[in-house]
């Protein structure tokens, strides 16, 4: 048998074995007596956090500070949920609002603050516009027991310039979760 025929035969065997190993369509019909059982489960959405405040400690012009917490979102709405983050104000401020750390991307030696969460994988400058960090478009029914929902790591970073006035600065971010309207809702 020539080399060519051997190669063709080998490829034929590979293709044949590959096809036979695939989960091809199998549709079984069966006749059975059915009993209908109806139960209604209400739609809900939850948001959870470990901490309400993230103390970042002391920041210097040579050492940025980072910190974070975990945020969990859980829903049983079939179409899932949308979660967003936004800064409630542009800058971190001292209590008297005289001194500020602006919302620019943090970098050593530059005053700025930012965050990352979910699909925002790199620290971004804090934004006052709602930024989607999760868009779960469908919720898969749990196969066993309870599900904890989706957990997101929320991280912050703050950097300061050498001339940043000393003081305690604070700010806030708003995390909003809403269920996606589904076709089953009225």
């Amino acid at each position, binding site marked *: 048998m020539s080399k060519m025929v051997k190669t*063709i035969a080998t490829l034929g065997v590979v293709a044949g074995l590959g096809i036979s190993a695939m989960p091809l369509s199998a549709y079984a019909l069966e006749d059975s007596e059915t009993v209908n059982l109806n139960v209604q489960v209400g*739609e809900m*959405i939850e948001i959870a*956090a470990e*901490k*309400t405040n993230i103390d970042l400690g002391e920041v210097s012009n040579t050492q940025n500070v980072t910190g974070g917490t975990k945020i969990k979102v859980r829903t049983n709405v079939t179409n899932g949920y949308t979660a967003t983050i936004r800064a409630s104000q542009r800058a971190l401020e001292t209590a008297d609002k005289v001194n500020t750390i602006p919302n620019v991307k943090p970098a050593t030696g530059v005053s700025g603050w930012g965050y990352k969460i979910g699909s925002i994988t790199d620290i971004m400058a804090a934004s006052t516009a*709602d930024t989607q960090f999760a868009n779960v478009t469908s919720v898969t029914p749990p196969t066993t027991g309870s599900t904890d929902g989706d957990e997101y790591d929320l991280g912050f970073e703050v950097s300061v310039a050498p001339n940043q006035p000393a003081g305690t600065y604070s700010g806030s971010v708003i995390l909003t979760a809403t269920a996606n309207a589904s076709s089953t809702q*009225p």
Partner: protein
Amino acid sequence: MVLHTKIKHFVAAFAVALLALTNVPVARADDLPEYRLAITPTVQDLEELQPGETRTGTFSIKNTGKQDFNFTVGFAPYSVEGENYDPNYTKTTQYTEISEWISVDQPKGFLASGSETMLNYTVKVPADAHGGAQSAIITVTMDNKKSGDSTAVETVRQLGYLIFGNVDGEITKNGKILSNNVPGFVSSAPLTVSSIVENTGNVYTRAQYSVQVFPLFGDEELFTNEEDPEKSLIFPETKKYNAIAWEDCPSLGIFRVKQTITIFDQTDTVEKLVIVCPFWLLFVLILLVLLIIFWIISRIRSHKK
């Protein structure tokens, strides 16, 4: 008859067990997060509203975490941007005026761990409200405890109860189906069809998407949602992307796939043959065919010599 009675007994026992299970706490107290807020239900479609009308409703808020907390209720406009419907809770438009029309009976409150309260809301539609869609969210926010003395960032966690309706008046109902895509080739499951629709009117609607998959020969449906088509909420002056996947699609086959989309009075149907075949198998088959052709040609040439 005996079988019927047995089935009835089984169903009754199952229902009792199910009811009992619903009262069993799913998680132990140790597993609970420190702070967790829940609302139920999550959305309210007010459907048609009349100018001057007052509408009321209610939803529940629960503290399902370990710690007690105060809560604050607020109202925010709700609009969407882009084909993936990125929500915007700060932009006000002619379609978000409803956020000014809502009030609740408990603007602030306290929720002990494990407790629940009902929030009653009222929507007062102004007599001079213009026709068209309106949407907003009622926000329920967990109030935070005061922070320490170091540089700190507070995380404000809130849930949005989506509320929307169409105010009667000068309304237009127009829509377009911008794309209706059924792929010709799929290398692996799922087989996904997609589409983009545009609502060019001023009321919200629900676009309807139905998909049917047939074998190459024959009319037996392998997959369909025709009896319960997917419906998607489309707000006015927005475009929305939608995808439907046949998750259990076999790894190999040729199918006839049909997608029908309806928005307002516009309907579009696309039917296509779809080949499902993994890339590696396609490569092997092409190689095999080429080799066979090459072998046949070389055999013919050697015979001529």
